[in-house]
Structure formats: C-alpha cells, structure tokens
C-alpha cells in the first residue's frame, strides 16, 4: 500500500498509523513492528533533514508478503545520499567521547534484514526488508 507524506517531522504520527494498520492487519508481532517503525522514522527524518529546501512529498510503500515486510521510501529532486554506506559509530566510547547525533543510520543498518539504495535522475529510493518470522 502506497501513500505520500508531507516532508515534515509532523508527518511521523501519520506514517506510524499508516504502517501500523498494515502490520496489524497482517498479524505482525510487536517485536518486528518496533524495528520496522524505527527504520521508517530514521529514513524519513534523514530525508527531511538533508533536503530542507525540497518541498516535495516523500512516498512510502509498505508491503507484507510471504512473511517478509518490504518498505520503500521514495523522494524526487534530491542529491544522492547512499544510506547503505558504512556508518562509523563507536558504540563503546565513553560518555565524554560521545556526541549526540549520528545514530540514526547506524541503527537502521543494524535492525533491518536487507537495505538497498538506488539513485537515478535526482530520485532516491530506499528499500528495506524485515522478516516477520
């Protein structure tokens, strides 16, 4: 199921409700729904933060088939930003050494089962999958 969302943090509740309805209808467990919602938020907020001058909507597609949840986020008129590139976060650093920020993509890459990115004609598309079983 596909829907466009305004490029604004205030869309997060609507995105959560949109995905939650689909996941609940497919009887996806809470232990899987949580990381799916988290991955969606991290991707969406990343798109909002790094393209502040772009006013176009962000497309979100959520599909559940054969035990696999597939989520696709698409945006147009943007520069390339490969979210699959390795993120260097020292999670063992001390409090003094750590700084706020930078965790979103690191978390994303660690909680999904598969993450893909493609960029063409100033359109970014991110696809992630999460197994429900």
């Amino acid at each position, binding site marked *: 199921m596909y829907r466009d969302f305004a490029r604004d*943090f*205030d869309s*997060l*509740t609507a995105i*959560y409700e949109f995905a939650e309805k689909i996941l609940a209808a497919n009887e996806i467990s*809470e*232990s899987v729904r*949580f*990381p799916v*919602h*988290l991955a969606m*938020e*991290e991707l969406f*907020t990343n798109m909002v933060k790094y393209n502040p001058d772009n006013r176009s909507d962000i497309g979100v597609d959520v599909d559940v088939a054969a035990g696999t949840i597939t989520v696709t986020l698409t945006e147009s008129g943007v520069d390339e930003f490969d979210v699959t590139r390795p993120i260097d976060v*020292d*999670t*063992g*650093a*001390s*409090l*003094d050494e*750590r*700084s*706020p*920020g930078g*965790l*979103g993509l*690191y*978390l994303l890459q*660690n*909680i999904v089962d598969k993450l893909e990115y493609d960029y063409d004609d100033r359109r970014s598309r991110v696809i992630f999958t999460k197994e429900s079983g």
Partner: protein
Amino acid sequence: MFEIDYGSDGEVICAGRLDAAQCAKAEAFMDEIADTSTLDFSRLEYISSAGLGLLLKTQKRLAESGAALSISNVNNHIYDVFRYSGFDAIFDITAK
C-alpha cells in the same frame, strides 16, 4: 503522542512515543533537570535516535556537575535500541 512529567516520588515519567516530532517537547522538560534523576520508562512505548540524542545530551550536561540520569522500567524493544547504541554502558538502565 508523548507525555513527560514528574511523578509522585520525583521521578520523571515518560509515556507514549518519543519520536523526532516530539523531541522539542521532551527537550524543553529535560533542559530543566539539574540534579541526578530517574526517568521512568514504564509507559514509554518507543524511542528513535532523536530521543537517544536528547538523552545523551542531557547526560553529558548533568555529568559536568557530577549528576546523572538513570532509566528504569525499560521495555524489551527500547532496551535493544539502547544495547545497539551502546547506551547500556553510559546509563544505569533497569529493564521492565
């Protein structure tokens, strides 16, 4: 929806979903915390990296005066996020 307020024993009760859209509300409250405090997460359902950043920022500020945040009643999903992030080493966290 996200709510934050003091409980009857002085603990800070967080409830709902702490996503990026709710961080300004959480930050306005957390910026007023000046002493060692416990955050009660028993009714917090969800947190994203935006919320983690706020917790880290608050912990670093409090550490400058020898104070600290601890976090209690953390659900399994949020605990996993803390563990992935290494926050279990820089916060005193109690699981639900």
